[in-house]
């Protein structure tokens, strides 16, 4: 009997059509747009200026504080501009633009495909490399990894959970990574486990709609006492940090508490792979795997892309763009990330970032929102909410702008998974309003 989390959740069709497509290396783009705001926390501060020549892996922006991460050049060439450029949602972010010239890598970066599973660095060295080489959580939120690995007073981690749930429909990038680079993922996980302490237990959580991945990781961990694989029953949002801890350990993260307070730290398998590359190969986080997919099976790709590649180029290579620069025929919308939590791309010239995990193409029919009706008090949203919130109530409070009541009803616990919106028979824009209320009251708090 596979485990799963206890509260709420939904069962969207997983539609993982691209799961059998191997990861291809995406060609190096002519121009990259590297955003300074690729992680949670303070945006990085550029250390290069217009006209500088940079090599692949060179530091181009320093972290602006503890909760921040450095950014490295993903191509070699000349810095064309350091200015605000619109990102994929059309908001302006400080961006370093590099015109590619050749593919010269910084010395000291090991580019050989050989797997080095032997760990020679001490935990301190590993930690230093993780924070210096810009590793951030690749599960979506892009939280700087070194912050998560820093011990907090009075909280001793007991478990490191590698998140291979990939509960988002359509996405297959983590799955392909486990299949093709399982050994590296495990090595990266082992390194993070050592940073946390030698008595920490390592767990890999994988949903049971990926039997091959479970088999691969089971085989790899068979010799290790400190590691085990936990197959999970398919359910969304299993990959949420709090849900995964609940599913694997049966522990609930209290309101306003950090997940580590339950003794568990969650890291994505993609992050583990990035840690492996950083520590064993000295390679900064300049590339990641993303899935380009759609529901009519015409486009199914898994690409390893360089950070900052324009979305338009990736879609063109995948065959989703017409020559005149519009999306080809049936498609009307591109979603950056998975269909549940991803954001639609408003600006196709915007770049992909460190934590981009997929580009999903949708047709007009699939994405068109239906006219919202009236709440019929069916409580489906309440049943679906994995945080046991009352979305219908929060929605009404958000409409009324009642900040105090919103906070009393734990609006900040909302993980924005979209289960309420998915299950609402009246098509109410529940999450839209709740997210807005969250952001507004956060802004008010900062003032």
């Amino acid at each position, binding site marked *: 009997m596979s485990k799963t989390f206890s509260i709420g959740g939904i069962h969207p069709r997983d539609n993982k059509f691209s799961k059998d497509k191997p990861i291809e290396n995406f060609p190096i783009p002519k121009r990259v747009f590297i955003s300074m705001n690729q992680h949670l926390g303070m945006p990085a501060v550029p250390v290069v200026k217009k006209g500088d020549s940079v090599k692949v892996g060179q530091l181009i922006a320093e972290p602006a504080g503890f909760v921040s991460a450095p950014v490295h050049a993903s191509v070699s060439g000349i810095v064309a501009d350091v200015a*605000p450029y*619109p990102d994929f*949602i*059309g*908001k*302006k972010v400080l961006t370093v633009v590099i015109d590619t010239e050749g593919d010269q890598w910084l010395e000291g970066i090991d580019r050989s495909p050989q797997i080095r599973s032997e760990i020679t660095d001490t935990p301190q060295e590993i930690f230093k490399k993780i924070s210096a080489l810009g590793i951030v959580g690749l599960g979506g939120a892009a939280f700087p990894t070194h912050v998560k690995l820093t011990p907090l007073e009075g909280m001793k981690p007991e478990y490191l959970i590698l998140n291979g749930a990939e509960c988002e429909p359509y996405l297959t990038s983590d799955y392909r990574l486990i299949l093709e680079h399982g050994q590296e993922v495990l090595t990266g996980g082992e390194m993070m486990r050592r940073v946390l302490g030698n008595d920490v237990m390592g767990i890999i959580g994988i949903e049971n709609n990926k039997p091959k991945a479970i088999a691969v990781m089971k085989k790899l961990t068979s010799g290790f006492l400190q590691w085990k694989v936990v197959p999970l029953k398919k359910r969304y949002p299993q990959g949420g940090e709090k849900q995964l801890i609940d599913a694997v350990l049966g522990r609930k993260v209290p309101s306003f508490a950090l997940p580590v307070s339950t003794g568990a730290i969650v890291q994505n398998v993609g992050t583990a792979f990035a840690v492996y590359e950083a520590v064993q190969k000295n390679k900064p986080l300049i590339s990641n795997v993303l899935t380009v997919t759609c529901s009519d099976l015409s486009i199914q790709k898994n690409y390893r892309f360089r950070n900052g590649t324009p979305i338009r180029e990736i879609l063109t290579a995948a065959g989703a763009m017409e020559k005149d620069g519009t999306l080809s025929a049936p498609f009307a919308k591109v979603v950056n990330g998975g269909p549940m939590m991803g*954001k*639609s791309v*408003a*600006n196709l010239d915007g770049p992909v970032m460190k934590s981009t995990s997929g580009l999903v193409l949708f047709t007009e029919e699939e*994405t*068109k*929102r239906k006219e*919202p009706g009236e709440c019929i008090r069916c409580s489906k949203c309440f049943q679906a909410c994995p945080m046991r919130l009352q979305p219908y109530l929060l929605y009404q409070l958000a409409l009324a702008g009642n900040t105090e009541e919103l906070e009393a009803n734990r609006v900040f616990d909302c993980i924005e998974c979209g289960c309420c919106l998915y299950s609402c028979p009246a098509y109410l*824009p529940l999450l*839209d*309003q709740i*997210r*807005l209320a969250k*952001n*507004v009251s956060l802004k008010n708090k900062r003032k």
Partner: protein
Amino acid sequence: MTFTLLYTILSLSLLGGLLAVILFIVAQKFKVQEDPRIDQVLEVLPGANCGGCGFAGCRAFAEHYVNNPEATDIFCPVGGNPVMKLAAQVLDREVQEQMPKLAVLRCNGSCGASERLNIYDGSSVCAVAADLYGGETGCSYGCLGMGDCVNACVFDAIYIDPQTCLPVVVEDKCTSCGACVKACPRLILELRPKGPKSRRIYVACANKDKGAVTRKVCSVGCIGCKLCVKACEFEAVTVTDNLAYIDPDKCRLCRKCVAVCPTGCILEINFPPKKQKTENE
């Protein structure tokens, strides 16, 4: 039988009398002396309870106005000078006249002026859209056109013009309560003096990008060229962050800035049409 009736009537009458006495004592003890002038002021006020004055409704305004004879910044924007004069008469006070104000839209990026780059089909609330992304056009400062200001207006003074996709403020109905200014997530509505004979000049743009960037996304955006600054003889125009601003207090409505603006983002409202130039250009 008759005794039962008698006892009932007696005991209830006694009880009633006793309670009446208690009520009377309590009422005397906790008597609240309210200034009768508050009600008089309240009668003069418009009674819209819009909150434009900064108080929670007209009664709160009246209380504050009566109790603070020194305060000079209390003003009912909806009633304007006539109402304030009446209110001042009640209290025998001097009234400080204020220029009537009006909400103006600092965006001119109509459907024709700036190209639509994408289609938004989410929840049609400006605040949600502004929170989510940069907007349908390339301009991340301009009007989103979903009408949060229309919904905020309790006086029906704003409507969205289907031709331009921009909100229009109806001059006669706008009471300058400022509800729309607060509702706009992009902060592009501004309260400006109505101006003599309702004539006014303002910069209809909020774009703080560099000129070249602005020009690419909108044909009527302020590019921060500072021609208006040079043209102005009264130092009323300033450019900060690539965006011109006309100080309404200094502006003498000479319209020189309007003539020099290369993109036409400075609007002149309610001026008579200019005389035809005789010479050919």
